[in-house]
């Protein structure tokens, strides 16, 4: 059973084909990673799935429903949540208020939204910073806050755009810990990631994009051994350790 089915997704920017006829599936309950060199079209692909950008062609099916053309807030209510590559804390609001916004998808009671936001902050280890302005958080905590905001909408599919970029291994392990726990709870996770250490260790399936095209798909081990992938992305000496 698939959470997400992507068929022939295409996007052009003024003559340049950013994403060309990309198809792949994300199995329910899996961690699927979308990898590729810079400019491969990962974020474009991601934005089209999340409803932030309209594809020029192709279809996106979420839990058996065609979702191309639906606005981001509808997708959120259907059970998809995303984080942004460039972090977007709501800076004039406190940490807990940031998380509460997502919670209003399920309740219109402020007290209830606050209570469930506190639960989520507890889970990601930000409970003691709940009342601080979001702008005061350091980078690793900001990343956690992005994750917490997305979780507040109680998604079945969680889409993460480079949440582990620029983090020290100890901090990215903190995030991986949370992701593993979510997966055990049945959540499907699609992530764009550059940190190969994390992808290799934790992804069930890897989709490799290059120049806007899918060049490989499979388990981390298969993909890492694929000569095309090594040539175009991982490098000849295979930096996968």
């Amino acid at each position: 059973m698939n959470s997400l089915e992507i068929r022939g997704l295409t996007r052009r920017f003024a003559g340049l084909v950013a994403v060309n006829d990309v198809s792949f599936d994300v199995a329910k309950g899996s961690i699927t990673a979308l990898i590729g060199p810079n400019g491969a079209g990962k974020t474009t692909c991601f934005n089209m799935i999340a409803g932030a950008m309209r594809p020029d062609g192709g279809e996106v099916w979420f839990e058996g429903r065609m979702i191309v053309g639906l606005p981001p807030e509808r997708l959120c209510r259907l059970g998809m949540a995303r984080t942004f590559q460039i972090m977007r804390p709501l800076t004039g609001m406190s940490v807990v208020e940031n998380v509460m916004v997502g919670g209003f998808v399920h309740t219109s009671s402020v007290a209830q939204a606050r209570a469930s936001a506190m639960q989520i902050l507890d889970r990601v280890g930000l409970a003691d910073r709940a009342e601080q302005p979001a702008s005061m958080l350091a980078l690793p905590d900001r990343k956690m806050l992005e994750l917490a905001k997305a979780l507040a909408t109680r998604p079945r599919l969680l889409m993460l755009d480079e949440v582990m970029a620029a983090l020290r291994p100890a901090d990215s392990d903190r995030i991986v810990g949370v992701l593993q726990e979510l997966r055990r709870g049945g959540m499907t996770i699609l992530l764009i990631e550059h940190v190969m250490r994390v992808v290799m260790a934790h992804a069930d399936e890897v989709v490799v994009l290059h120049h806007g095209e899918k060049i490989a798909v499979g388990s981390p081990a298969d993909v890492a051994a694929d000569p095309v992938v090594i040539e175009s992305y991982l490098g000849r000496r295979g930096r996968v350790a």
Partner: protein
Amino acid sequence: MKAALERRQWIAAVMFFAALLLLPIRLGDFYLTVLSLVFLSAYVGIAWNLMMGFAGQLSLGHALYFGVGAYVLAILPDRYGVSPWLAMVPAAVLPALLGLGIGALGFRFSVRGVYFALLTIAFSEFARILFEHWDYVGRTGGVFLRALTPDNRPLTSLRGGARFSYYALLLTMAAGWLLSALLIRSRIGYCWRAIREDEDASRALGVNALRMKLLAVAISAALTGIAGGWFALANGSLFPDSVLGTQISINLIIAPIVGGLGTLFGPILGAFIIVPINEWSRDLAQSSGINGLNLLIYGLLLMTVIKLSPGGCWPWLARHLRLAAGGWKIGAAGE
């Protein structure tokens, strides 16, 4: 700790409004009139602040809503014998509908920020020019309300002396403040602030930005229309330029900016600072014979506030009155 702070804030607000209720016992008509102007300015500031300070949508055309509300109250009671109480309904509903129309046009086509502000100016200027050429509303000659008769009953005509205007506008302001306090503590307020901070990110969190922004415009416009209505009743005459002019749009945003954008009490504090200085400096300009001296003082004051306390005076004052915690802020744009 947060609950205790919130209780202090509510107590302070109640004490403040209670003091204003008792003030007329000691004050003469002149001061009552100035304070009435303060309340009107504060109330319009509260309405505008809902849209700009909380939902982050810049409107520079609120004169449209103010003017339409004013004309409704100037025309319906005198020409058709409609009770002013009842006339307040269209004075609120018509501006709300206009706001929804302009908002739908702007938001639907993703006209954001400054460009949206330009759109609001365009519509208010369009209305002013229309009114200047429209016989029904007296063209540039405006509308004069009937003179008050000796048997005038203020609670029926909603018109009366300085004391009546004082209490009417004080209650209007208090109601506007209470409404905005309740809104901002509700789901709607959280969604507005999220949109203000980052519209795309808030949509990804399930906020229906279009609907929330339309709601902000409609409520803000309705409240502003009622303000226009009170202005017509208290002033007795109005002209396109005096209620629909760009000057009105600009004037009504200064109090919330000086007081503190995006704060509940900022518009009130701002009005208490701006209106008396405005009155005093206008007198000074007249008595000294230096034309424009009042505008000079006004400009200097604005520059001083923006330089010293860019978030407005209220966040600063609230900290000193211990009505705000270190990190507590309903949130001003730009921290």
